[in-house]
């Protein structure tokens, strides 16, 4: 039947969300080899993570509950701190997600070009933004609320009450974040905005980590630092941030658990959510069309060959034309992609925090035995290895996946795939090796290790760096994510998880293999007994063989896999 000629088309909100829903359903139902295993591993890791958070909070809250007077205050303060950090993460994540969903998504041409009402488009895209940016925080909130509800006997009624508190808490930063993005896109071109946002996001995260570490919050947990108990309670009673929704959730939640439901907090949350939603919709109506139009404009991006480029070219000349071009390409792509190089800021902060923690280890105080002075530098190796494997997961693991769309060029050229792997491996390994040796050098200096431990550390970290890089390239090629354009998402895949698990196992095994000769050396130093050279050679050789195998085997498997890739 034909519609009346006067009736205008009016696609519903659910219709606009249809493709997303169908895509998700199709992904969930498509048969895929190994999917069951993947789900099992991911599910198990997720459950373990939940159990871990629940366990830690449960123990802490049980302890707080046993403390007279200030127990509920401490629990409330903790909840407030967690919620403030959730709120900051949500705000930042929504600003970035909104840029993709409102301005850069591929379906926008159809939606903006179609007869879609502005309010429906706003609703559909806002819902998409809320889900994409808040699912992780929401999952993290489950064990947190569960622990609070359990310890304070919240009962079943606490579940709908917590949901009623949390839904507007998630919605408010989403509307505000989308609004900030809308204004930003009207000022800067969308692509430039993405660059600016990624740097701002990383610098904010880095700043928070650094600030949190440098103020050494563990000292605040010592009441003896306050002049009196009254002062301490006064500090605890002060709201963390009275005008933030996190404070209302905290107040509402704790009131329910220790006294009775605080309906004013619930009302404040929902009323604020409704108010910002109306304001957000008005802003969208006023600014979206011009913003979307500006988002289509490309920013001018010039890149002239400078002195640095010429210097690099000359330095790489001995490698020959092919390898030089491959290495230069890798370096250029990395440093011209803001989402990539900006991660270095976070990396630098992590290293500073790590070194800072080592610096303040109370190794020279009373009661610390000589054996601990030997064990700590040795464990430092394991921790440094773990830091390196995390860095490799972020920067080296995605290397082959990022080549996906341009693989046609490399596959059709007269280049052996081993050359590509060679370039990816060395471009990743050399900077990581320099970093590893710097960390170990500085921390060893701070720990005042013996020459023997210094040599063991340097040689071991070199072997571990090669192994970690070999594994990262290997697993990254065996489990590629050719369709994912965002490098930051690639390490969170199933292959990334497997890589991290294998990498940690290799680091752990090397440490275990070296533990015996290092312990033997320590004992010999303390008790002035002879060192068994044969035993040392045996265990250190085993560790070296493991490192070599962990480097070569994954690279070989990766090469075979890469030669068979058809794209």
């Amino acid at each position, binding site marked *: 039947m034909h519609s009346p000629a006067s009736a205008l088309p009016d696609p519903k909100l659910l219709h606009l969300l249809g493709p997303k829903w169908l895509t998700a359903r199709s992904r969930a139902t498509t048969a895929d080899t190994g999917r069951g295993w993947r789900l099992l591993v991911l599910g198990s890791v997720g459950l373990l993570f939940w159990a871990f958070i629940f366990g830690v909070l449960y123990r802490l809250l049980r302890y707080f509950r046993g403390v007279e007077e200030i127990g509920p205050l401490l629990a409330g303060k903790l909840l407030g701190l967690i919620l403030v950090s959730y709120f900051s993460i949500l705000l930042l994540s929504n600003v970035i997600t909104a840029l993709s969903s409102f301005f850069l998504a591929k379906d926008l041409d159809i939606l903006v070009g179609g007869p879609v009402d502005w309010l429906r488009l706003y609703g559909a895209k806002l819902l998409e933004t809320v889900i994409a940016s808040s699912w992780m925080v929401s999952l993290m909130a489950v064990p947190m609320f569960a622990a609070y509800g359990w310890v304070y006997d919240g009962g079943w009624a606490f579940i709908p009450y917590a949901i009623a508190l949390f839904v507007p808490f998630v919605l408010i930063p989403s509307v505000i974040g989308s609004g900030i993005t809308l204004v930003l896109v009207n000022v800067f071109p969308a*692509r430039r905005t993405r660059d600016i946002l990624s740097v701002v996001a990383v610098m904010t995260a880095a700043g928070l980590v650094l600030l949190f570490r440098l103020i050494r919050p563990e000292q605040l947990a010592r009441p003896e630092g306050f002049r009196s108990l009254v002062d301490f309670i006064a500090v605890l009673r002060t709201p963390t941030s009275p005008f933030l929704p996190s404070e209302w959730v905290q107040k509402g939640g704790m009131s329910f658990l220790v006294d009775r439901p605080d309906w004013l907090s619930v009302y404040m949350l929902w009323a604020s959510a409704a108010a910002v939603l109306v304001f957000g919709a008005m802003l969208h109506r006023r600014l979206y069309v011009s913003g979307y139009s500006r988002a289509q404009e*490309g*920013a*001018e*991006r*010039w*890149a*002239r*060959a400078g002195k640095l480029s010429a210097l690099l070219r000359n330095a790489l000349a001995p490698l020959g*034309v*092919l390898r*030089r*071009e*491959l290495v*230069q*390409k890798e370096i*250029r*792509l990395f440093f*011209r*992609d803001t989402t990539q190089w900006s991660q270095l800021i976070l990396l630098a902060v992590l290293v500073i925090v790590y070194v800072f923690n080592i610096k303040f280890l109370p190794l020279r105080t009373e009661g610390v035995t000589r054996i601990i002075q030997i064990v700590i530098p040795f464990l430092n190796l394991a921790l440094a290895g773990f830091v390196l494997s995390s860095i490799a997961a972020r920067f080296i693991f995605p290397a082959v996946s990022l080549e996906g*769309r*341009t*693989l*046609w*060029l*490399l*596959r*059709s*050229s*007269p*280049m*052996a795939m081993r050359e590509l792997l060679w370039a990816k491996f060395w471009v990743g390994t050399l900077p990581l090796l320099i970093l590893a040796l710097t960390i170990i050098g500085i921390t060893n200096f701070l720990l005042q290790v013996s020459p023997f431990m210094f040599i063991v550390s340097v040689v071991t970290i070199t072997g571990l760096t090669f192994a970690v890089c070999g594994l990262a390239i290997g697993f990254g090629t065996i489990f590629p994510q050719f369709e994912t354009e965002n490098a930051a998402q690639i390490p969170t895949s199933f292959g990334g998880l497997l890589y991290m698990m294998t990498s940690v196992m290799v680091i752990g095994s090397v440490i275990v293999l070296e533990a015996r000769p290092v312990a033997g050396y320590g004992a010999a130093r303390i008790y002035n007994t002879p060192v068994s050279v044969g035993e040392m050679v045996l265990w250190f050789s085993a560790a070296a063989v493991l490192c070599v195998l962990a480097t070569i085997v994954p690279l070989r498997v990766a090469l075979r896999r890469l030669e*068979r890739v*058809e*794209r």
Partner: protein
Amino acid sequence: MIRLTNLTKKYGSFTAVNGINLHVPAGELFGFLGPNGAGKTTSLRMIAGILQPTSGTIEIGGVDIARDPITAKSKLGFIPDRPFIYEKLTGAEFLRFVAGLYGQEGAEVEHRAREMLALFDLEEWRDELVESYSHGMRQKLIVASAFVHRPQVIVVDEPHVGLDPKSIKILRDLFREYVRRGHTIMMSTHTLETAESLCDRIAIIVAGKIAACGTMDDLREQSSHGGGLEEIFLKLTGENAARDLVDVLDA
């Protein structure tokens, strides 16, 4: 120059290319036509060494691409239908990079790259990142990259997608001149006028098999149809059995 023997490609139980035998000699511009999903792109990507055949052989200049891929590929330039290239390289850097893949560098490459960019009106964009190029500009850059290392054979999949009329004219002249110098081009296209006026010989592929192959006269004879390429193509591919348009539009 290009020789395909019993070339077959299967994806699971689906046969995309089914036992193709073909020889394209040096100095020929060969057209590869067929409806969507007939196996054109799969065949060209196998010739370019991107896909591996399920069975059969491919020789480029007498070299089996499966046995000696490096030598075979060094004679070849490939232009895909979708212009995916490194977004964070400039046009000039991209051409230099492609030449480097073929072991070429120096003043000659720089000169050739400049000439190719100028030919396609991209000289002003040479130092701008590819991410700011339009679809057509990217396509032109890929065409330039296929010529920059002077291959003996060029395999082209849909060369006209996204190009403006001036660029299409330049490309046609470039292809003709290139073939006149004794090189070979194998090209798939949906533009039948281009194929008819430009190609020395044409193959029409239907459901993974070659339905007809030869010069325009050969095709007329094989299809028992005296008309132009469009009529021959529709007859061989069964497109003339399409639904009555009136029924479709009124449905």
